[in-house]
C-alpha cells in the first residue's frame, strides 16, 4: 500500500501528473498534490459532504474515493465554478442570500447544488430540500442555503430560455 504509483488526474480541465500511494484519498490528492484547497475535509467518512466534488456527471464525496480510482474521469471542484471574475449564479446567490457564515461547508454545498441543477434544472422544492439535506452546515444556514439555491435555479432557468 505504501508503494507510490503515478497517475494523471484531470481537475478543472487541467491534467495533473501525481505520484501517490494507492491508499491516498482523492480529497487529499486534490488538495495536496493538485493544490486545489477549496475542497474541504470535515469528517473524512462521507457524512458531512464538505468534500463534495463533481466527478464526470455525479456529485461525489472525494474523501470516500482513492485518487487512483479517479483516473480518466473529469473532476470539477469549487475552483471551476466562476468564469474568471464572473461568479457562477450559485456563488452569487449564496452571497446575496447570506447562505454562508464560516464558509467551510460552502464548497461542498455549491458543488452538490451545481450538479443537481445541471441534472435537474426544474427540480421541485421538496426534492431540492431532500438533496441539500445530504450535506451538513453547522452555522445554522440551511434556510438561507435553500433560498440561495432556489434563487440560482430560477436565474439559471431564465438564462437558459433567453
Amino acid at each position, binding site marked *: 500500500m505504501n508503494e507510490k504509483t503515478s497517475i494523471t488526474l484531470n481537475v478543472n480541465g487541467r491534467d495533473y501528473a501525481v505520484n501517490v500511494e494507492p491508499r491516498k484519498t482523492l480529497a487529499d490528492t486534490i488538495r495536496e498534490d493538485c493544490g486545489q484547497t477549496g475542497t474541504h475535509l470535515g469528517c473524512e467518512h462521507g457524512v458531512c459532504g464538505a468534500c463534495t466534488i463533481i466527478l464526470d456527471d455525479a456529485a461525489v464525496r472525494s474523501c470516500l474515493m482513492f485518487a487512483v480510482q479517479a483516473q480518466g474521469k473529469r473532476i470539477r471542484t469549487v475552483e471551476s465554478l*466562476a468564469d474568471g471574475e464572473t461568479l457562477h449564479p450559485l*456563488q452569487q446567490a449564496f452571497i446575496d442570500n447570506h447562505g454562508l457564515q*464560516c464558509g*467551510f461547508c460552502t464548497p461542498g454545498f455549491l458543488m452538490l447544488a451545481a450538479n443537481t441543477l445541471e441534472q435537474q434544472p426544474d427540480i421541485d422544492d421538496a426534492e431540492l430540500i431532500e438533496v441539500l439535506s445530504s450535506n451538513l452546515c*453547522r452555522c445554522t444556514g440551511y434556510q438561507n442555503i435553500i433560498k440561495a439555491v432556489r434563487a440560482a435555479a430560477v436565474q439559471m432557468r431564465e438564462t437558459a430560455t433567453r
Partner: protein
Amino acid sequence: MSHGKPGRTYPTPPAAKDRRVIGHPVTRIEDRPLVTGHGRYAGDINFDHQLHMRIVRAPVAHAKINGIDASAALALPGVVAVWTNADIATLSPIDFRADKSAESLKAYRQPALAKGRVRYVGDPVAAVFAEDPYLAEDAAELVQLDLEELPVIVSASDKPGTFDDGLHTEAGLFTHTFGDVEAAFKTAPHIIELDLVTGRHSGVPMETRGAIGRYDAARDLLELHGAAKIPHRNRETLCRMLDRSPSALHVFESHVGGGFGIRGEIYPEDVLVLLAAVRLGRPVKWIEDRREHLMCANQGREQRHIASIAFDDNGIILGMRDEIFHDQGAYVRTHGANVPNRTMCMLTGPYKVPAYAAIAHFRLTNKTPAATYRAPGRYESSFVRERLIDAIGHKLGIDPNDVRRRNAITPAEMPYARPLEALGEEIEYDSGDYIGLLDKALAAARWTELQASLARRRAQGEAVGAGLALFVEKSGLGPTDGVRITVDTGGLVEVVTGGASIGQGIETVVAQICAETLGVDYRRIRVVHGRTDQIEHGIGAHASRATVMTGSATHAAALKLRDKAIDIAAELMQTSKDALDIIDGKVVRRDAPAGSSMALGDIARHLAPGSKTRGEREPGLSVTGWFTTDHQVYPYGVHIAVVCVDRDTGAVAVEKYLAAYDIGRAVNPALV
C-alpha cells in the same frame, strides 16, 4: 444615549434614513473568497519541510500508565520522533486564561501528554512526528501502551473519589448568596424542589481543530498558525507556558470553520506543535480528525441541579436555592471554574429574587474535559430557573407566564443591580422590557391558540407540548479594545483589529461602522483580525462582545481619522473644517459636493513623512482609536419550542421554534 449611570454617555447616532451602510443588510465582504475556494483554513496552511504530528490517545477512561513502547513506530522510515510525558517533563500544563478562582485548581490542569495516568478516552499519551500525515498515523498505531485500568467516575453527583495522591475529585466548592435565604424558606407558604439535569454537549464546527507551529530561528520568532477565537489572550498564556516574551511569539488566525466557544482555546496539541517546531527545527502541522474532535475538544453543560424555590400564594418569589454538581470531566481546562460560577450568577435571570443561595460542587470525572460551549452558564441556569417558574404556575394553578409577569424586573426598575458577579463584574442589568418582549413572543407564537391545539392533540394521546423560557444574556464585556485605521496612498482603508472571525461576519460589521463614520465604501475596506503581529492587543471573538467593543473602537478610530483628513484638507482646499465632509472616499465641500474634492489617497500622500504640505502634523493618514466601557450589558430574549415525542420510538420532533430578542439597533440585519 444614556447608559444608565450618569457619565456613561455614547454619541447619538444619526436617524436611520440618514445612515448609508449601518442598519442595512449589505452583503458580506468575507464571502467572495469563501465561495470561490480561496479560503485559507488551518488545513490549507503549509510550510516547506513541515512535519506532521499524530497523537496517540488513551483508549480507556482511566488507567495507570505502566509503560509506552515506541520502538516499532520509531523504526518506520520517515518517523522523526515520538514523545511521551518524559520528553516534555519541564513543560507547564495547559494554563488558565481566566477565572480568579483558578489558583486553587492548578493541580488539576492537563499536561500536554498524560503523566502517570490517563483520565479520559482520548487523553493524549504520545506524539508522533513524521514526514507525511499518513505515515504519522501508521506510526501512531504502532505505539504500544501498557495500561492498568482503574475504576472510573462517571457522575459528578456520585461520591467524589481520588484524583491523585492527596487530591480529591471535588476540585472546588463555590458559593454565591445574597439575602436571608434561610428565613425566606422558613416562612414561605410554598416551596418546590426540582432535581434537574442538563446533558453533556459540545460544539461540532465543520472544520476540525488544527495547529501549525513554526520557528524562525533567524529572528527567534515562534509562530502558531490555525488559531481562533482569542489569539491575543492565547499568546499571553503560551508565553507564560513557554517562557517567551510576547513579541517573540505570534499567533495567526486565518479562516476559521466555526467556533461555538470550544474552538480556539489552548489545547495540548497547540503547545506540542510549538515545542516540536523549536526542538525538531522544522514546521510541525497537526490537523485533528473528526473522531479526535468528538473525543477531545472541550465539552460542556453537564450539570445536575437540586433547585428549590420559595414563593407566596400569588406566585411571588421569596427565595431561591440551588445545589449544583458540575461535571468538569478529566482536567480543569483554560477557563478554570468559570462555567459553574457563571451558572450561579445568571440563575436568577430576569426576576426579582429577594434571597438566594447557590453552591456548586466542581467535580472531576473520567470524561472529556469541559469548558465553555455556547452561552456557558446561561443555557444551564435558564433551563433550571424556567422549570422552577413553570412549577410555581402548575402548583398554584396559574399560567406560568403570569408568574413571569409578576416577578420580572420592570423597565422602571432599571438599571437593576444584583449583588452577584459575572465575569468579575458586579451584575447590573442596564435596561430591558422583559414582559414587553414576552408578550410580543406570545403573540407571534399565537400562544393561546397554540395551547388549545396542543391540548386537543394531547387529549388524543399525543405526547406534545410547548416550552418557554425568558432569560437574560450578557454582552460587551470590556474593559478596553482598540483598532488602528490607515488609509494608504491608493485610498484603500485598512482596519487592523484584535478581533477574531469564526464566521460571524465581523469583517463586514467593522467595515460598515468604519465606512459610515469615515465616509467611504465599505467594500473598499480591508479588515485585519486574529494577528498578534499586526496589533498588540485584542479581545478576539468571544463572550458576545465583538460588535460592542471592536465595533465601538472602530467608530472611535474612524472619527479621529476623519478629523485628521479633514484638518489637512481644509488647509489645502483653503476653507474651514466645518465646510467639509467625506463622501465615497473623497473630501468635498458640504455646499458643493459635486465640486472640487480631494481623494483620501491624495490626503495620505500629503501626510507622508517627506511631504512639504504636512506641516507639523504627525506623518501618515493613520490613527489608533480606543473604546472603554466600565460595564457589560445584558440583552434578553424569549424562546418558545413546540416538541413532540413519539410514544413508540421516543423520537423527538421539534415542530416549531421561535426566538425573540431585544437586539437593539442591528448594524447588519442580515447577520443578526
